[in-house]
């Protein structure tokens, strides 16, 4: 047991220097992460004249009215509502379809099971760019362009391969005696799925919800092409149009950015464990 505890006391000075360096580096990186956020807030709450005179420091007057002005000018309330309207069905669809298919591909017997699984897996390698062009014409021809479905349908479909891959891996890992017991009790396949398997899948489903919520909330290229009317525009493209339009008006464009960033950051700070688990779930588990 020649562990660190017995070595440390021998060189107290070196230990404290190392400790100081350790914290110094950790804090340096924390500053690197936090400074840009700080400047977004400072810039958003200054007037443009104040930005030109004192670009770095604290706002001489905290102009919270900038946020109200950006909120009104930018129609952000509509953009937020739109984002919710598209994100909720996407997450619900992806999670339910992935659970069903992932479960079947993990636990149920059917001819061609592995073939279907590999067929979905290939979808993990197809970048959205490779399908974005004809998808526009397909969505037009089935008549959904100009409605929220123009984002809901394709975003759900491109999220399915990962969802299925993820849920299949989860269901494969559950012990078989659970299902066998339920079957002896007379449950059919759907009953086993609903009563035994789904309740166990809580953490995995939570991770999948976070992952897909972030994916569709933050999506940009897809709504840029398929949801163009200002009435349907979600926050990410809405923010892009807003900041470009107000280009040299830095205080307005940063106020708009802050309005879009703040809610998601607040939610993250409250549910940070769930966020970290959800967003890294694929990497840690897979």
């Amino acid at each position, binding site marked *: 047991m020649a562990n660190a505890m017995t070595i440390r006391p021998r060189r107290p000075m070196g230990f404290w220097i190392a400790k100081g360096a350790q914290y110094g580096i950790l804090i340096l990186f924390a500053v690197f992460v936090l400074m840009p956020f700080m400047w977004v807030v400072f810039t958003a709450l200054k007037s443009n004249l104040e930005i030109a005179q004192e670009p770095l420091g604290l706002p001489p007057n905290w102009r919270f009215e900038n946020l109200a002005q950006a909120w009104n000018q930018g129609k952000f309330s509509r953009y937020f509502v739109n984002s919710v309207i598209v994100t909720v069905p996407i997450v619900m669809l992806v999670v339910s379809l992935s659970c069903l298919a992932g479960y*079947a591909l993990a636990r149920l017997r059917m001819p061609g099971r592995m073939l*279907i699984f590999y067929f979905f897996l290939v979808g993990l390698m197809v970048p959205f760019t490779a399908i*974005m*062009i004809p998808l526009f014409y397909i969505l037009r021809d089935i008549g959904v362009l100009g409605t929220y479905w123009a984002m809901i349908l394709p975003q759900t479909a491109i999220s399915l*391969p990962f969802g299925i891959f993820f849920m299949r891996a989860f269901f494969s890992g559950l012990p078989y005696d659970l299902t066998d017991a339920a079957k002896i009790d007379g449950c059919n396949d759907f009953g086993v799925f609903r009563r035994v398997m789904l309740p166990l899948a809580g953490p995995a489903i939570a991770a999948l919800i976070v992952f897909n919520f972030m994916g569709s909330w933050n999506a*940009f290229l897809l709504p840029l092409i398929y949801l163009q009317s200002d009435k349907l525009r979600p926050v990410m493209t809405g923010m892009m149009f807003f*900041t470009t339009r107000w280009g040299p008006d830095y205080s307005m464009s940063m106020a708009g*950015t802050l309005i879009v960033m703040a809610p998601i950051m607040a939610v993250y700070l409250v549910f940070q464990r769930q966020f970290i688990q959800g967003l890294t779930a694929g990497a840690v588990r897979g």
Partner: protein
Amino acid sequence: MFESIRQFFADRKLRDYATAYAFVIPALAMYVIFVVYPFFYTIYLSLTKWDGAKPVKEFVGLLNYQQLVADSRLWSALSHNFIWIVLGTVAPVAIGLFLGVLLWRGVRGMVFFRTVYFLPVVLAPVAVGIIWKWMYNPQFGPINSTLRAVGLDVLAKGWLGDPYLALPAIILAGVWGYFGFCFVVIMAGLQNIDMEQIDAALVDGANGAQRLWYVIIPGLRHVLTMITTFTLILGVNVFDIIWITTRGGPGRATHVIATYTYNTAFRESYVGYGSALAIVMGLVSLVVSFIFISIRERGGD
């Protein structure tokens, strides 16, 4: 007819199959209609000359692909993707590993550091782009303002306007946005490394670098493959952050395959040629994934 259906359901095995397929079919249908079919449609479009409007798509065979080979814009875009993949993988992995090792044995304020490092990961790439476009603003941006404030005026550059600096500058913004992800995953991997091995190495007199190379990195092999897969996919697909900051400029200095494809198909209305570019992108993605899977299989014992 009805009799055979009744028989089908009477057969328990067939009935089980039917249930299993019923579980899969909704997902399969969505996937086929909105991913698989469009992919083949892209291949078809890539063999045509079409402006997106004319009723007739003129079939031209492999002409678009012949033009691609000689297209200097494509090659420069691909080289930028390559640079993104290399820098965008090495930098966050190195930072993540470094910070991970520093925090490994537990430090006061561990949760604070983890929360902070992960914070940018929840932001959309669009937001990251907007924030850093402001950071790099030549006149009033915080970076140049800071440099001027400390008397380093010569270092105050037009970051995003310099053809040599623009791409690294955007990659730095990207790395800011997701190094926290790599850090968290590496931390999770470090928890699984056997402490006794490290202690044994210490006893054998292994220095820090040797411990890192011979014990820690092999122990993280699986996690590092996962992260690299993630950064590779990111590097091939990158679009949002570039579109927000430079739109591929100055000149062609930051164009990547996705921005070039979007520009060609939607802004210039060369739909056929844009589809050929999209197929190239699909192929790159496929080849990269394939190489990666085979490395993983070989390394996975």
